[in-house]
């Protein structure tokens, strides 16, 4: 009996070795595979997997100017750090820039932009900031005041997408990279199933999108788990801003996010399995897909006459907060005049590499 207890005690006190190198002490359990590994091996497998994703999917070519969508959050901070490291280590030959969008959210975005400004110095990457106020004459604070908290994420997402493209055109970028990780993509697959959006379902797992548009964008973190990004940032002591957007509590995505967190606890590989399912869906060729055109008002890529940003802006400026939200159209007879904002007759044109994009009234 004493011998058994002694051996148990020895087992407990003997440090577990890393299952990869078998030399160093295991410091963590890898969220994706549950392997117990040391810090150095974790850095290696984390960076190596991203490098393989970049190479196998031909994400970049030498000489590319890459705009890294940088919010100051953990995903974009780690993305900037890792891309910068891999660019040097494997000689990608890329010119990297940080591109930030200021949505005008007091107490959130102004703080996170300070983080990005520090990243500019820490990583030596030039920074460009583009604001909603400058582009649309509305900040998110003003939008939320006008429309409340129900559809505000729709406005922000639509505006941010266009803002990224316009900012990238300003710095003459060839590609935009974003920090969307495996958890984000899995959530998007589920959301598109729940919402019946077959068109988005067919596109949302693509690692590169918008190749037929002005500036393609890609997601090197497509197979990288959010937990591992946090772990990497934590161990590397990277400087990032960790507060959630103050306007996000009611986002529908929260449903899917909670489900995926529960799923990950039961089966960690389920996140990758959802992405695999999304890639393998047999979408019928007879399913009608929207045709890509350009917005008649601003020239941005759009499947309708007016792009979503223009429709939403029109609603804001006419005091019709529901315009462009959901499937119903607001009839002109139901106009409610709230506060009137007059859009200045301002032409904002971007003479980017991919053609002029004029935004005018």
């Amino acid at each position, binding site marked *: 009996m004493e011998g058994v207890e002694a051996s148990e005690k020895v087992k407990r006190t003997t440090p577990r070795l890393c299952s990869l190198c078998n030399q160093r002490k295991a410091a963590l359990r890898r969220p994706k595979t549950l392997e117990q590994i040391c810090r150095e091996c974790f850095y290696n497998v984390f960076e190596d997997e991203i490098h393989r994703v970049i190479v196998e999917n031909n994400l970049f070519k030498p000489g590319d100017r890459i705009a890294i969508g940088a919010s100051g959050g953990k995903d974009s901070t780690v993305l900037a750090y890792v891309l910068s490291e891999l660019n040097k280590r494997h000689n990608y030959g890329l010119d990297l820039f940080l591109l930030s969008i200021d949505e005008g959210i007091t107490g959130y975005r102004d703080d996170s932009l300070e983080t990005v400004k520090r990243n500019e110095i820490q990583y030596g990457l030039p920074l460009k900031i583009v604001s909603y106020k400058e582009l649309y004459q509305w900040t998110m604070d003003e939008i939320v005041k006008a429309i409340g908290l129900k559809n505000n994420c729709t406005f922000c997402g639509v505006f941010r997408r266009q803002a990224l493209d316009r900012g990238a055109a300003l710095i003459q970028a060839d590609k935009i990279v974003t920090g969307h990780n495996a958890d984000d993509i899995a959530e998007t697959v*589920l959301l598109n199933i*729940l919402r*019946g959006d077959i068109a988005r379902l067919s596109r949302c797992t693509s690692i590169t999108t918008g190749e037929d548009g002005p500036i393609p964008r890609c997601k090197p973190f497509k197979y990288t788990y959010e937990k591992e990004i946090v772990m990497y940032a934590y161990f590397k002591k990277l400087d990032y801003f960790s507060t959630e957007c103050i306007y996000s509590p009611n986002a529908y995505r929260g449903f899917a996010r909670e489900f995926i967190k529960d*799923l990950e606890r*039961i089966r960690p*590989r389920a996140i990758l399995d959802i992405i695999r*399912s999304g890639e393998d*869906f*047999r979408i019928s*060729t007879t399913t009608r897909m929207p045709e890509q055109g350009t917005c008649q008002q601003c020239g941005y890529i759009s499947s309708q006459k007016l792009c979503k940003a223009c429709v939403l802006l029109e609603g804001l400026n006419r005091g019709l907060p529901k315009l462009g939200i959901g499937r119903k159209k607001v009839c002109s007879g139901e106009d409610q005049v709230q506060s009137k904002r007059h859009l200045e007759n301002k032409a904002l044109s971007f003479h980017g590499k991919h053609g002029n994009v004029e935004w005018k009234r």
Partner: protein
Amino acid sequence: MAVCGSACGSNCVPKDTEGEEGERLKRLSLEEENSVRRCTKCAEEEARKECNGLCAGCFRAYLYGKFKLAVTSNAMISPTDKVLVAFSGGPSSRVALEFIHEMQSKALACWDASNSQALPVFTVGVVFMEECNISDELSDQADDVIAQIRSIVSGLSPPSKDLRIVPMESLFSSDLRKLVGSINDATGREDFVRHLRMLSLQKVAFEFGYNKLVLGLSASGIARHVLSATVKGQGYSLPADMQYVDTRWKAPVLPIRDCLEQELVTLCNLESLKHVQVHDKPCTSINGLVSSFIARLREDNSSREHTILRTAGKLKPFNFNKFSSNQYEYVPSRLRPKFQFIETGEPESPEVLCPICASPLTATELATTRCSQQMKGLNIKEMEAFYLSCCQSCHFQILPKEETSMSCDGFFDLLPKPMVKRSLLRDEIKDYLLEDS
């Protein structure tokens, strides 16, 4: 409502309105005061809160209409068919049984009234698959459930139905309890029992001469399957299991898919259709998590299940989700062209199916299988060939791994023979193998 003189300029009811119209208006007025809502369809009976604004009669007709449309527009049942209803005792299969029974009764009444009686009426049998002996999770309440099943089926009005209560372990010469118990993954265990159940139903249908199998799979069940398959990486094969017709099996499977579970439960309550109440046990599997997720979505928006179904409905079905042309001979000629195979471009090559779950393998899985098989050459053991031909999901959650108590050989030896026979690779090369190998 006030009644004024003719000089009154308001829009109230004139004093001299009498007769039927007056009575109706008075009744409407009383109803308004008592807040009684009328059925939105017939406007006669009282609308039931749980029936989406319909009365009990119209609600039943609405559900039966969906069932009948699914059967007729997909040519599911022909006059010469012998139909086996898989009855679990739950509300969905209870309603499926009830509707099939009603359809048969009506067909029989027509046949009785017909002079020629040229076309026969399909026959219906019922099967309950007893699974308590293969899993501890299923062993509770088994005797009560069987007694209730017998009572329900014997309580149906004529024509009577053959009821078969079949213990699953009696169908195969394997120790199914040991086999199921050796699967470590809770989700894998549940899914494997589900595959065994389908295999068993097919066996019963085949042995007793039934050529059609009805499953009480509701829209809610299919929505759960859509999400479960997605999170297990089975996006490619997902559409195969949710169509009206599935000819992967010898006896084609015909789910009723357009009715929500909640609607079926409501119908059972309204019509006092006895069904088996199974007490919910805590579920640690992915399937359980998906069920609770769908329940939360339903509370938020009651149409969410239909939306999920609609999304998955836009995924392309497989070649086996259609009957062969000779099974449409009883379909009216004006509808027959709809079911005839129309070639669009190159015909699809037949899908290779996983021998455990019968899911079509993706191109990547097939390539990996063939590459591994080529590497092993002709000396490949039957067990190895079987495991290579399984899909990635079954590999992960069902097949034994190094750390499990049962060896790969042990697990393979316990598998039911019909499941092993599905393995393709060995069959492809067996004619070229010599006796000694």
